[in-house]
C-alpha cells in the first residue's frame, strides 16, 4: 500500500514496509473493534480476557514482592497479604486459562489459518507453568525446599539439570522475576494480536455442507 505522501521508492524502505504491513493486517478497527460477530455470545469467550487481567494482577503484586525481597512476607502482615494477592492471582489465572484453553479446543479454534494462534496459546500455557513453578521454588519456606529437592531429580534425569537448577535460588529467582514474565508477556501479546488479526473463529457448523476441520 502506497500512501499519498510516499513515492514508490519510499515504499521499499524497511520502515515503510513494516508500517504498511501492520496497517494492512492490523488496522486500528481490528485492534480495537466495537462490534463482534453475532455468534460471540457465550460466557466461554470471557475467559480469555479474564486470564489477561489476572496476569496483570499477578504482575502488580509480583512487582511489589520483587522490590520488598523474598523474605519480606515471612515477617510482615502486609507482606503476607501481598503474597496472598500473588498466590490467589496465580490460582485464578490458571483456572481462567485452562477453561479458555478447553473452550477453544471444543470450538476447534485453530480453523481458518489460526494454527499459530493455538500454538502461541499453548506456548503461553507452558510458559505460565514454568513461571508458576519457579515462583513456588522461591517461596523461601518449607514447601520451596521440598519442591527443589523433588524437582531436581526430574530435570537431572533428562540432562536439563545441567543448566536449570531448582536448588539454586539465585538462578531461579532471576528466571522467575526477569525472564519468564517477559517471555510470557511477549507470547501473550503475539497471541492477542493474532486473535485480533483473524478475528474469532466462526462456529463449526456455520457453513452449510461442510464436514472438514
Amino acid at each position, binding site marked *: 500500500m502506497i500512501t499519498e505522501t510516499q513515492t514508490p521508492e519510499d515504499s521499499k524502505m524497511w520502515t515503510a514496509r513494516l508500517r504498511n504491513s501492520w496497517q494492512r493486517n492490523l488496522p486500528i478497527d481490528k485492534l*480495537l*473493534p*466495537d*462490534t463482534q*460477530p*453475532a*455468534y460471540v455470545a*457465550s460466557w*466461554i469467550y*470471557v475467559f480469555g480476557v*479474564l486470564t*489477561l487481567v489476572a496476569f496483570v494482577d499477578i504482575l502488580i503484586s509480583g512487582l511489589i514482592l520483587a522490590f520488598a525481597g523474598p523474605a519480606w512476607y515471612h515477617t510482615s502482615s502486609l507482606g*503476607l*497479604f501481598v*503474597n*496472598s494477592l500473588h*498466590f*490467589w492471582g496465580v490460582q*485464578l489465572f*490458571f483456572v481462567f486459562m485452562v477453561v479458555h484453553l478447553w473452550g477453544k*479446543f*471444543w*470450538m*476447534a479454534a485453530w*480453523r481458518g*489459518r*489460526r494454527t499459530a494462534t*493455538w*500454538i502461541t496459546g*499453548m506456548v503461553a500455557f507452558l510458559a*505460565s507453568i514454568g513461571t*508458576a*513453578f519457579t515462583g513456588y521454588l522461591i517461596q523461601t*519456606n*518449607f*514447601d520451596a525446599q*521440598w519442591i527443589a529437592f*523433588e524437582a531436581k531429580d526430574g530435570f*537431572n534425569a*533428562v*540432562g*536439563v*539439570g*545441567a543448566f536449570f*537448577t531448582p*536448588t*539454586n*535460588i*539465585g538462578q531461579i*529467582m532471576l528466571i522467575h522475576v526477569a525472564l519468564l514474565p517477559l517471555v510470557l508477556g511477549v507470547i501473550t501479546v503475539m497471541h492477542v494480536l493474532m486473535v485480533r488479526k483473524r478475528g474469532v*473463529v*466462526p*462456529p463449526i*457448523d*456455520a*457453513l*452449510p455442507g461442510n*464436514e*472438514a*476441520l
Partner: protein
Amino acid sequence: MKTQSVKQEFDAAPWAGRVRKYDIVKEATIAFVIVSMLVVLLSLIFSSPDDKQLTFRGWAQTNPTDFYATTVKELSGTSESAGYGPPYNNASSGLNIGPLWLQKWAGVTHPVDVPNDLVVTPLSLSVLSANETSALDTWKSASADQQTTWATTYDTAITDANGDYTVVPAGDYGPVPALANALTNIAAKGSLDALLLAGGNFYSTDNTKQILFFGDGAYLSDAATAANLQGNTWGMMNETGRYPGQAWLWLYSIWYQVPPFTNEASAPVGSNADAYVMFVVLGLTAGLMFTPLIPGLRSIPRIIPLHRKIWKSYYAEENIKRRK
C-alpha cells in the same frame, strides 16, 4: 477436497454475517475490576500458605540421631547424594531411556564432593575443641581407602543398630564418631546452614549442598510425608496446609501414581521413572500443542459436538442443524 477448501476459506475470511455491539475496552476494564476484587477477597479470607523453612539446627535438635547417622553416610559415600551421578559427581551414570543417557551426557556441571563439601569443609571452617581438631587432622591425613574403611564400617554398625549411634558397639571407626559428633553440635547451634551455603565465601545464592544434605536424611522427607507432599500421593500438586497447590501439574503427577512408574525395582521404566515420565509428558504436551496438525485429534471437537452448546443461541437463531 473442494468442500474442505471452501470451509477453510470461509473460516479464514473476515466475518460477513450478523454482528453485535462489543465494547472491548469496557469489557477489559470490568474484568480487571472484578478479578482484582476477587483476588483481594480471597486473600483477605484465606491468606496464603507459608510453612516455616526447615533448618539444620531444627534437624540436629529434634532428631540428632538421624542427623548424626546421615553425616556418617556422607563421609562413607553411602548417601543418596554421594552415589547420585551427574550433575553432581561421577559416582553413577544416572538414569537412561534405552540408549539415551541424557543425564550422563549432560555431565558434571555442579560438582559436589560430598564428604568434603558437606562435612569436612564445614568442620574446617568452625571453631573445634582440641579433640575434634585432632580428629579432623587424622581424617585429612589418612588415605582415601582408610577414610572409606573407617566410615563404611561405622555406617554399617549404625545401620545394624537401627540407626541409633548411641548403642553401636566399640570398633575401629577412626575419627569418624568425633567428626559426626562435632558436626551435629555445630548444626544444633545453627551454624551449619550458613557454612553449607557460603562455604567460607561472602556471597552465595546456591542452596544445592543444603538441599542434597537434607534429602539424605529422614528429616525433610518425614516433614513432606506429614504434609502429604510425597510424589506418590499426588504431592506434586499439593500445597502445605489446606491450600490449593499446582493443580496444573496433574498431567505430570498422574504418572507417579500408576505402575510401572511407581515400582522403582521394575526395569527399565520404574527404575528410570523420572526420565520416562518427563518424556511421556513432553509427548502428550506436543500432541496438544500440535493438535491442529494431527488428523483425527483435530476432528474430536466435531465428533463430540460440545460446540453445539457453545454456539447454541447462534445455531438456533440461524436455524443451523448439526453437520455430520
